[in-house]
């Protein structure tokens, strides 16, 4: 007769092997290497927690130092390939196969290792996709996670940066996998139970907090006047006419400028309460002035942001907080919220082609996707109406019967025609295609597909792609806002003028915006210190952002 409990029995064996190095659930830091060798098996599917923010850094380091003679061929399934150790495990032969989502700082090395055959790539996912696969065909056998503190029963407090932890534990522990957590301290009673102790098998006292990258902090001091102009265009030319209240912002300087213009320019336009009231968003420090001025009603967050914790606790009407007072973030829920409950995504990118496809990949870098494609895609499963969604749907298909017409999410790409180091934003062909060729990938890593993009904003104006009726119009609308880039200079002038007459392209002057008004004095905060002062001293900027 078939044994229906092999996974539970395997878990029992792992727990028994690990117990040699543990006292109760607690594993001493010194014993971590032997412990991991005891509980891991070659070929295991392992989730090492880490995303674009928090990192199970101590566990990553220990994993990278294992003897590949004993532990090898691991299949890593993890959100982020961010720490050097995340790739060291492949370099050393501890791991072989990789399914991931985001690789920001390791984007160059991962590209090199992929082409060198050091890594066998499953796929590059969005966060939600990878989480989804944890429950279908990429369920971890071992999860190595990070929390702030644990009690002796293994109950975990994950603090403001809860992020991926509940999802990873849910998929692993309830499918007879083993969960090992690194914590900064063992306490008698955790401030709140984010993860119940009976789902956690072992706890390692790392004696220091897990690493968190301040990825969402943008220094207002670095915002340019061109970015301010694009932000003015966005507010007056998009947020206002569509009445966008529920949205997600990317992490670039253009959207930081929008956040800092709300209490000044937005106020002047009389838009308070009419736009930007509900966000799926990490706690951007640049949103502090708008929150303080009463613009924002509610924000749900993927993670926290370094230095923002006291501010978030003190603004529980706006943020999601636990009974202990600190923020509770959750990446999976927030991604779902961004996909289904937001009417707009607006973010910047590195390359946009003539069909409106965009990518942050350049020939030698694979930065992954993270969550942007979940936010920046039209959710075809959506059924609830809202004014911006219906209006965008009508833009796209004016002749359809209203009762049968899908709404559309506003998916907006915003940037300057020439980006950092004067690299043009617009290209004839995405570098992603060349990279896909080179690495023999089935799919080019496209961040946002052209058919999801509704608008492109540059200092040259707004292109409303929903109003384009064929590919030619679409191409010329994109060229029409591409400024003096090669793509822009190759525009068909007559057609671009026709598109402008139809309102497909709207220049700053068409919206009554004088580019000379785009002045840094319009920003509600012009430095990190201003943000700290606006928060009443509650925001404590990390050292690398303090220019005082």
């Amino acid at each position, binding site marked *: 007769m078939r044994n229906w409990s092999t996974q539970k029995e395997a878990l029992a064996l792992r727990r028994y092997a690990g117990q040699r190095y543990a006292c109760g659930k607690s594993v001493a830091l010194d014993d971590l290497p032997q412990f991991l060798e005891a509980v891991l098996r070659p070929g295991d599917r392992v989730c090492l927690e880490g995303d674009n923010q928090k990192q199970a850094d101590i566990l990553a380091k220990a994993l990278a130092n294992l003897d590949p003679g004993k532990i090898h061929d691991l299949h890593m399934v993890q959100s982020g390939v961010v720490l050097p150790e995340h790739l060291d495990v492949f370099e050393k032969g501890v791991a072989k196969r990789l399914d991931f989502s985001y690789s920001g700082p390791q984007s160059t090395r991962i590209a090199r290792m992929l082409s060198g055959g050091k890594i066998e790539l499953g796929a590059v996912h969005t966060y939600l996709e990878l989480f989804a696969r944890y429950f279908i065909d990429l369920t971890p056998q071992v999860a190595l996670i990070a929390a702030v503190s644990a009690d002796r029963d293994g109950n975990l407090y994950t603090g403001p940066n809860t992020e991926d932890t509940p999802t990873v534990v849910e998929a692993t522990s309830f499918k007879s996998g083993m969960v090992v957590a690194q914590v900064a301290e063992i306490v008698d009673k955790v401030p709140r139970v984010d993860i119940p102790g009976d789902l956690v098998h072992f706890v390692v006292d790392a004696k220091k907090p897990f690493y968190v990258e301040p990825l969402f902090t943008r220094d207002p*001091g670095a915002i340019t006047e061109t970015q301010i102009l694009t932000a003015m265009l966005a507010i007056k030319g998009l947020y206002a006419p569509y009445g966008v209240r529920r949205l997600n912002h990317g992490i670039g300087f253009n959207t930081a400028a929008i956040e800092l213009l709300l209490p000044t320019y937005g106020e002047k336009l009389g838009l308070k309460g009419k736009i930007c009231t509900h966000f799926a968003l990490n706690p951007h420090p640049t949103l502090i002035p708008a929150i303080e001025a009463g613009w924002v009603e509610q924000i749900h967050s993927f993670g926290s942001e370094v230095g923002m914790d006291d501010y978030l606790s003190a603004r529980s009407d706006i943020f999601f907080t636990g009974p202990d007072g600190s923020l509770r973030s959750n990446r999976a829920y927030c991604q779902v919220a961004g996909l289904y409950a937001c009417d707009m995504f607006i973010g910047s990118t590195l390359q946009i082609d003539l069909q409106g496809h965009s990518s942050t990949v350049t020939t030698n870098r694979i930065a992954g996707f993270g969550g942007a494609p979940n936010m920046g895609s039209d959710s075809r499963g959506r059924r609830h109406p809202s004014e911006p969604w219906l209006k965008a749907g009508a833009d796209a298909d004016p002749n359809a019967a209203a009762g049968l017409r899908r709404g559309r999410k506003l998916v907006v790409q915003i940037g300057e025609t020439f980006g950092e180091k004067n690299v043009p934003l617009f290209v004839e062909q995405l570098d992603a295609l060349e990279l896909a060729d080179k690495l023999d990938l089935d799919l080019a890593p496209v961040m946002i597909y052209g058919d999801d993009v509704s608008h492109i904003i540059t200092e040259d104006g707004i292109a409303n792609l929903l109003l384009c009726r064929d590919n030619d119009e679409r191409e010329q609308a994109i060229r029409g806002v591409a400024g003096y880039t090669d793509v822009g200079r190759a525009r068909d002038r007559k057609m671009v003028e026709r598109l402008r007459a139809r309102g497909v392209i709207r220049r700053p002057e068409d919206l009554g915006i004088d580019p000379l008004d785009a002045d840094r004095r319009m920003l509600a905060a*012009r430095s990190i210190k*201003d943000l700290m002062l606006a928060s009443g001293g509650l925001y404590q900027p990390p050292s*690398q952002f303090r*220019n*005082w």
Partner: protein
Amino acid sequence: MTSENSWYEAGARQRVAALLDPGSFAEFIGPEQREISPHLAIFDLPEQFDDGIIVGHGTLEGRRILVAAQEGRFMGGAFGEVHGAKLTGLLRAARTLGEPVLILFDTGGVRLQEANAGELAIAEIMRALVEARMAGVQVVGLIGGRAGCYGGGSLIAGCCSALIVSEQGRISVSGPEVIETNKGIEEFDSRDRALVWRTMGGKHRYLIGGADAFADDDVLAFREAALIVLAGNGRLDADVLEAEQQRLEHRLHRFGKAHDAIDIWTDIGVSEPTEIPGLATDEFLRRTTNKRETANGAR
């Protein structure tokens, strides 16, 4: 919050316009003369018609004054051949005319693309500056721009009669990245901006006598400070140099082993030294009264 008239935020022309008596500024070799760098085109780099520095004359409370202002947003305010020659000329004119000079520093040092010409310019400027001072002319440096005052700029600043600095201002020969590259991240983490500021920033420079007056990040505050400093004498002779040499030797002896600016602030008797970076100007000046090191018209 950042002042409406922030010095840090303003460009060189805005600073000059707000610093001097309204409408009094007249430019020498203005952008209409297109006296551009002869080197940048070789590197396919954009030029600027004033080569990133404005020189001219005007009045301050009615008193005639010469002024030079670097534009930190053009090549980080770096010195090149034309840029440097304009400042040299201004300082020579100051000696001839016997008129005081304000130098609005905003520079990362010498342009790599015209390094030899730039280094020569620094030497010429220092010579012209010292000659002007020997002739009794005051030369005052104002530092609070985005690029700080680094490299050759800091050497020139070191020759000035007096320096006015704001919290945002930074003064150092080597920049943070240079130190990190040469000595390692353990010696100096250039990404730790709080460390950069408490090592090179305005407050620390003021406390150790590397600057003589501390101003709010506001053009009018700089103007007030300039008026006060210009009321001094700016004397430069052997006695001043000897006194300064002794002060620096003493300073090295006293603080040479300190690992962090906070150790120095503790040593000079500032209460709650870790709070210094966060303090507003009034409170900062109140807490440090009579505690700071003072320079002797040379540093």
